């Protein structure tokens, strides 16, 4: 097997808010792919729901002129992540492919990371997750089922990235840009292709092209809460407003 070049890829994602319809297909796909515990009405009321990617909604105006704005929020995989220096046991660190990695079996649940994340996209397991019998066969064997007391968050479906890279290495093919095998579940599920995932190190990939085009002054690209200086790897594209 050829030696893996760890610096080859830099994973990034763009989220086009103009294309996003708020259908939540990404939320469902993520829950299915990553064994995210089931949230019921009680979890939402108690503010303990776990949604690795979720759609934030903000209402404006009154009926009948009410408008809703929504934005998919997921872990930004910041290059200058504020959550990384504070973990006492190195349960979260930045790997060489630009991902902010969460190591479940190292986490002791001190919850320093979640206080330091400006985007509120880290989640804590307050209870032992329970699945009804009928859903137990649906659990993804590639992903750890987390016990209580552990932090979790979006991983850019690192299990899919690892699997595709291993396949490519073993079988000797190059990974295509936009390959559905390496895309996270949310990107695959999005009906409008609002989510685009790819390798920022490849200048021809779709994410690089979007970044190049939209990061100019005339472009729609922006980072969320830029003044914190977190250097996120997720680029949001502004909604085009009707004049």
């Amino acid at each position: 097997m050829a030696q893996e070049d760890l610096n080859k890829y830099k994973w990034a994602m763009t989220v086009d808010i103009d294309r996003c319809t708020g259908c939540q297909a990404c939320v469902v796909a993520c829950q299915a792919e990553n064994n995210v515990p089931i949230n019921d009405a009680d979890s939402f009321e108690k503010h303990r729901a776990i949604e690795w990617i979720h759609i934030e909604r903000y209402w404006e105006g009154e009926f009948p002129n009410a408008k809703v704005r929504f934005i998919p929020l997921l872990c930004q995989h910041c290059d200058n992540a504020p959550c990384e220096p504070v973990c006492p046991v190195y349960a979260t660190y930045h790997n060489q492919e630009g991902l902010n990695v969460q190591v479940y079996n190292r986490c002791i649940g001190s919850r320093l990371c979640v206080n330091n994340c400006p985007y509120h996209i880290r989640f804590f397991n307050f209870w032992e997750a329970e699945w009804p019998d009928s859903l137990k066969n649906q659990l993804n064997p590639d992903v750890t089922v987390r016990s209580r007391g552990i932090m979790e968050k979006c991983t850019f479906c690192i299990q899919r990235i690892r699997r595709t890279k291993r396949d490519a290495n073993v079988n000797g093919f190059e990974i295509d840009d936009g390959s559905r095998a390496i895309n996270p579940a949310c990107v695959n599920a999005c009906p409008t292709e609002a989510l685009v995932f790819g390798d920022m190190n490849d200048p021809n990939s779709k994410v690089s092209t979007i970044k190049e085009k939209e990061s100019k002054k005339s472009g729609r690209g922006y980072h969320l809460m830029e003044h914190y200086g977190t250097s996120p790897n997720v680029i949001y594209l502004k909604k085009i407003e009707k004049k």
Partner: protein
Amino acid sequence: MKLEYDSKTRKGKLIYPEKVIERSLGKVPPSKDLIDKHLHKRGGMFRISLMFTAIFSVIGILGTIFKIINGFDNLSDWSVYVTACVFIFTTFMGAPMLSMATKVARGNWSRPVSRLSEIFCISGIAGLLMFLPILWVLPSLEDGRNTLWFYDPGKVPAYSPHIWTTIAMIAFILTALALLWINARPDFAILRDNSKGKNKIYSFLSWGWVGSTKQWNSLRQRVSILGIFYFMLLITVHFCLASDFLMTLLPGWIDSLYPVTQAHNAIQGGVAVLIIAVFIAWKWGGYKQYIGLDQFWGLGKLLFGISLLWVWFFISSLMVLWYGKKPNERDVLQILMFGKYLPVFLGTIFFVFIIPFTLLILNNVRKSFYGPPIIAISVLIGNFLDRFRHYSSAYSLDRTIDENTHRFANLPEIYVPSIVDIMVLLGAISLPIFLILIISKYVPIISLWENREYILYGSHEKYHHTEVLVEGKPY
């Protein structure tokens, strides 16, 4: 009291009799020697220092006039001027704190040097004179500069910071002068009674002091209340200077600790300046009999502790600003510490912390006559460098913002003082000393009444097989 204890059988109660030391006011009159020292004509060295400081003060005033003529528009021209002015407040005007603090804590060792520390109150006049032009230098709030006074056009005056700081400063200096006068009143009375011929000015200054119990009680009360006010005003003045005259000029620098840091640096500079003044009084003033090793030792211990505290304040600020890696805070640290001002910053740490800490930690250095003064000089150099890196960088800052990164386009170079700036700096150091020398002709620099109390309350006694110092704690 009798001992009822039989050491052979170990029976009976062992009561330690209170050993009574007899003293009397009559046997400890106000020191004739000190009165003579104060009243006789000043020698050659005094006159030479007076002349030199007078000349340099005039040079400083000329420098200030040049600067005023050149106008108030260019903020960066005034960098060193502001540094020099704040330097006066963080050194000379911090010295009276020793007298106030030891009076509250009822320490005995500081009595010989308390008048020396109070006499620094007069340097506030120099500070105020230097401060007044800066009121025209500091921009008003109309151009959108943030301030602590929550500027609301029409409701809050656009010159609020100027007004509040000036009021605080005037109150500070008046309190300091009042403290000096109240503490010196008994001395003026002693001089009035003991000087032949020159009574008029001393009877005016003593304002009817007779030394009755009521007058003494009211003196102690007034000193403690005014002392507390002095401390509060010191903190207020440094709060106003550090926030409105410094932090608002460096966008992105929101440091809630810095006013306290500057007040603490003022106390450190004050103790350092006091040590040097005590050394001069000891070596060349002829007061070797009255200032002893105890005083240098106490001041050395204080300087050591305060220098350690400097590091604590410094790290507290640095830790919070550095850890989060926020872009605007990183820029502030580049400007103040790690960027172009790095040599100044390293100099600051070296002179203000490393030298005092490593040397004063040795008991031999702390408890010596030459150790604390040499280290005090190092502290003063470091204090100046500290003011320089903060005030010069803030005043000479180029405030253009880069469009793409939304951060500072250019970081400031180290501001090189011009000839006029050096003139002003010399004046800033000399004018307070000149004022102190002048006033020392009328105010005795070793307090006559405190010297008496020092002898009354401190007593060397034989204690078992050794000799110890016994200190009385009257109140």
